[in-house]
């Protein structure tokens, strides 16, 4: 089943663009996890190219190589995530820029662009709404243990506001 050449061109272009996007992300992002994902994106671009060639030539070899790259990606993921754990334990951050002292001894440090003067958007976490009204208390149990349990609940509800 030799494929048509326009189809191969399409696959090559999509693979090239995926690889390019991966390399741009890898160069420019500073989060270790995002950099790892970008490396995986580059591997995906190569896989698309290989599968495109496989379909074009009607041979299995492209798919076999794509399977090898899948296994390589798995090995890389294992090593990379283990390294992230160690680096996070040592540096308490996923920022790659704090590892700049691994550079060559005669190289000047690259000054980090800081965001200190940028108004940081406050992180808004989702909150559960208070679940309905408090049940009406019967006068019989008003002064009972239920009442003594209330201040904690009321206090936490006030804390949410």
């Amino acid at each position: 089943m030799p494929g048509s050449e326009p189809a191969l061109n399409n696959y090559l272009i999509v693979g090239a663009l995926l690889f390019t996007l991966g390399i741009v992300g890898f160069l420019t992002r500073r989060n270790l996890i995002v950099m790892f994902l970008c490396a995986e994106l580059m591997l995906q671009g190569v896989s698309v190219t290989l599968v495109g060639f496989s379909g074009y030539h009607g041979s299995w070899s492209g798919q076999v190589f794509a399977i090898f790259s899948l296994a390589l990606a798995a090995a890389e993921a294992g090593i990379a995530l283990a390294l992230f754990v160690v680096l996070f334990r040592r540096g308490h951050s996923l920022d790659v820029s704090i590892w700049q002292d691994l550079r060559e001894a005669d190289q000047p440090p690259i000054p980090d662009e800081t965001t200190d003067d940028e108004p940081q958007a406050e992180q808004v976490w989702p909150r559960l709404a208070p679940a309905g009204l408090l049940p009406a208390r019967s006068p019989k149990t008003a002064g009972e243990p239920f009442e003594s349990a209330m201040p904690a609940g009321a206090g936490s509800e006030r804390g949410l506001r």
Partner: protein
Amino acid sequence: MLAHFPVLAASRISLLADQFRSALQQPHSGLVLRSLLILVAGGVGLYLMLPRGRHTGRRFDRIIGAALATLSLVLLATVEIPTGLAEVESAQKTLLWSFGSESKITGFTFYALAAISLVSAVMMITSRNPVYSALWFAVVLLGNSGLFLLQGAEFLSAATIIVYAGAIVVTFLFVIMLAQPSGAAKYDHVSREPLLSCLTGLILSSVLVGTLHYSARLDVRGGATETSILPSAEIITLSSTLPDSRHRTDANRHVAGLGKALFLDHVVSVEVIGVLLLAAVVGAMLIAGHPVHAPGVNETGRNKTGRNDRPS
């Protein structure tokens, strides 16, 4: 060596300019220029979408960038690449995304899947939150496995989803364990040299796409087929070939053929990959299992610089 560098660079640049000028004389130079412009538009859009810290002045930067990137994607679909088939030289103006004699449905499906992959890849590298990055990467994988299916790689498509689903879940775990406790980290809002890296990506993609044009032109002119990256399909002779997915019978089952190719033609590579995976597992255990001293008192003093992103 260093003293000769300016002379060397000047001669190289003049050489490149000569080549560029002669390339513009070629018959398909308009196409090359058009795809270059489209890629430039995409690069500018990507630059506008990237997190750039305090330089993210206007709120509409991301919207403008997304519009530019989408525009370049849509325009890229209309670029023609001349095919190298000599007998259809008069009709070589096939649209980039058209699939020749194949059905329209195949072309449309490819179009949709490629758009899903590329758009999610852009969103993956531009989103500020690593959780969203991982989610977008999952969408990239879905699009890619669809593309694999379209080319008759069914096992690979399933394996991609299965293997990477585990990887994505593990990445989620890592994001939740490592990134979330400190909230929105500053380093996620600042890119390192976004302009330069977009330029790098632009050059890389231009070279890759331009190589396609170049090889197609070689083919069209004829006589230079062996330097092309697209040899005609008949040159390649193989013992085992892909079964036609449209005439699938029990005699040429997909996985059976793939297994034959894996374990007959590439059996040594399979063994090597197995050993590599074993080594990776052992290495990961060695790296991650190594005890680190109590947090904050390691002797390298890196915690001083690392602390600044943590809320006190």
